[in-house]
């Protein structure tokens, strides 16, 4: 009985390889080659591969990765199929078929690509994963990336978390706030940046606490200056409800971030800041003050 099963599996595997990979393999060969218009030709092969086997994870992924609108006449059906959303959809389908492999690949490999369209397609795919698939796994991969020792991964993870947070701040903001305690400065830096991308009011108290830590008595209680500067920028991106917090920084004469706060407020154009700015102009010039003591 066991032998029969093994034989059957082997047959299925061979048949599978034969049918599924003919075009796929050809496309992959093309990519590796140095032939003219190799990517355009490879894309054609990936499409054929999907025609034969509609759930081929690799074909979906590669099609999403390589199918550029540059290959087609604008406004044709093929051109539309190569839009960022369509490419993202293919990448997502790859994730659905083989989640473990392609989720990791998207986060740690695809996002590193120099092509902005590829990055945006990956963002689209990951947003779909977040909405329709294993959200928990995605978040754990992103947290792993933002804690990574590689700057590219940290940067990419902040970008994705920021975008996911725009749609679901209730889940993402607490994750990012927790990351503000991470021991690696760069991780905290990216968490702060992501909170700016999210732009949610929920992040204001955490960012304010970071900013205020600059005058703490003990060194270990003080956040690094560059993280605090970015926190001010992020408050600026949040805008609206963050204006009072930014005004508070301008009014705190011992703060090192007053200039940053003023710049952020100037961009927001909120007229509430005019009075604190006028007050700042009235501050005393440098002088000697003699105080007699009884």
């Amino acid at each position, binding site marked *: 009985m066991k032998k029969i099963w093994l034989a059957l599996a082997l047959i299925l595997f061979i048949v599978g390889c034969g049918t599924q990979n003919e075009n796929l393999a050809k496309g992959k060969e093309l990519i590796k080659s140095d032939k003219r218009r190799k990517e355009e030709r490879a894309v054609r092969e990936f499409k054929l591969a999907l025609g034969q086997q509609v759930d081929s994870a690799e074909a979906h992924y590669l099609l999403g990765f390589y199918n550029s609108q540059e290959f087609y006449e604008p406004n044709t059906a093929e051109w539309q199929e190569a839009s960022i959303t369509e490419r993202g959809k293919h990448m997502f389908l790859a994730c659905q078929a083989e989640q473990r492999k392609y989720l990791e690949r998207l986060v740690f490999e695809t996002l590193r690509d120099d092509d902005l369209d590829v990055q945006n397609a990956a963002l689209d795919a990951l947003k779909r994963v977040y909405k329709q698939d294993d959200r928990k796994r995605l978040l754990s991969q992103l947290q792993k990336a933002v804690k990574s020792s590689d700057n590219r991964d940290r940067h990419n993870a902040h970008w994705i978390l920021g975008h996911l947070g725009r749609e679901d701040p209730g889940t993402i903001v607490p994750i990012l706030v927790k990351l503000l305690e991470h021991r690696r400065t760069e991780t905290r830096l990216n968490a702060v940046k992501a909170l700016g991308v999210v732009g949610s009011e929920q992040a204001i108290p955490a960012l304010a606490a970071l900013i205020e830590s*600059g*005058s*703490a*008595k003990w*060194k270990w209680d*003080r956040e690094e*200056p560059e993280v*605090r500067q970015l926190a001010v920028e992020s408050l600026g991106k949040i*805008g609206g409800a963050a204006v009072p917090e930014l005004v508070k920084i*301008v009014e705190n*004469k*011992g*703060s*090192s*971030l*007053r*200039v940053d706060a*003023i*710049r952020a*407020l*100037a*961009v*927001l*154009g*909120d*007229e509430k*800041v*005019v*009075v604190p*700015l*006028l007050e*700042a*102009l*009235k*501050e*005393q*010039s*440098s*002088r*000697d*003050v*003699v*105080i*007699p*003591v*009884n």
Partner: protein
Amino acid sequence: MQRKIKWFNRSHRSAFIVSLLFVMILGLGCDNQYYDERLKMQVQQLDSDLKDRWSTSGVVVLNTTPNGPADRAQLETGELISYVIAEYPVRSAGDFNSAMKQALDADNNFVLYLKDKPPLRIALRRRGDKMGLSVEGNGSVRVKQIQPGTPAANADIQVGDIVEKIVDERKIYSIGDYKETLGKLSKKQVTFRTSELIGVKIAAVNALGDLGDIRAIEPLVDLFKNSSEFSLRKESMSSLQRLVELSVLNDLFQQFQSADVNQLPADSLQPQQLESAAILGLLTVDRIENTATLKAPFGTQFRHRSEALYQKINEGQLAELAQEYIQIEVEPEQEIRRPCLAILGILKPVSAIDALITVLENPTEIPGIRFQAGLALSQIGEPAVDALIVAFEKGDTSTKDIVASALGGIGGAKARDRLIDALEGSTESAIQLTLVDAIAKIGDAPSIQALERQLQQYQQDDDSGVRIFLDEVFRSLEKKSM
């Protein structure tokens, strides 16, 4: 041994824990603020990175108790105390030695005051180095001896100089420093040196220029007139220029405001204003969709403020100010004269024509600024033509050159005829190219005819600069008519 451990365990464990807790509570209690009982004021630690970012250290005054010593000395909330200054009067050799010892205690430098001489800042290379100065006398202390090769020998000190006092400036880095220094120094009085954060003021000035709010105008004018800091004055004038630039877009913003929308068809708006607003980043224009959309948040907010700003700017105070400060005799800094000229170019006050002509004619003024004055006059336009023609008649070559350009920019029959006369009179060969350029810019039928006459005159002369330039002018005119 075991007994000892047991002894510790039994009787001292609780004492140890209590003292540990006490130390912890003490640590927690030491926050970043401190109330100075003697001066009756509260100070706070500055952000530690201010030192690196703004080269400023010290403590900030949080508040002063009314009628306390600090309050009576008019130390203000928000001032940054960067130095505590100790003064040691010298009335005997003993005074001198003890003062030196104290002054060199924390750092290696101090300021020496000698009678009838400017203060001397003396720095020792290393702690413990000799200053190389000995003194004598009582009541009036004189320099007795100076050792060669010491800091004293390198400074401007002569034997016989009278020593008045030694002043020690101690930099404050933290609350701890503040407490320690104040404890050591000053029994009868305390002198603080405060620091102004110019960077903050400059940022505030720039932001006020960007916000387009009417309330900023008077304070910026005040700061410009009264500050002794060049960078602040310069930025104040640039911000005022920005406010003027914003104010002239009022018509455009009123169209949005009266319709109470943030988007209008682009072709319903005046093209020049639309372009300026797009350059200033206030709106985006989509030619394909034919839309002009105010940019949030600033553009959308500014439409509510633009009318008030426009009214205020057009009261005339700013034009008067700018008119005064374009004169090199009044304002020696060219970086301030420039924005003043720009403001006049935008506001176009007829009353500024004479002042602008004076700048344009001034041979001691920088050529670029003279040219900018010409530009402002051409922006004023028709009312400036007569004054420009007078300046042309009596001016030297460089004045004529600038005036010709300005007249070309204004156009009109009067300006054109004078330019053609000048070109055909052949007395102005040095500015021939400018004349051709100015006439081409006017570009009406008599102008083109005049240029054609010139071309005929230079028919045989292939290599002359005028001929090459004329060919170029006609080529570009042809292109335009195509």
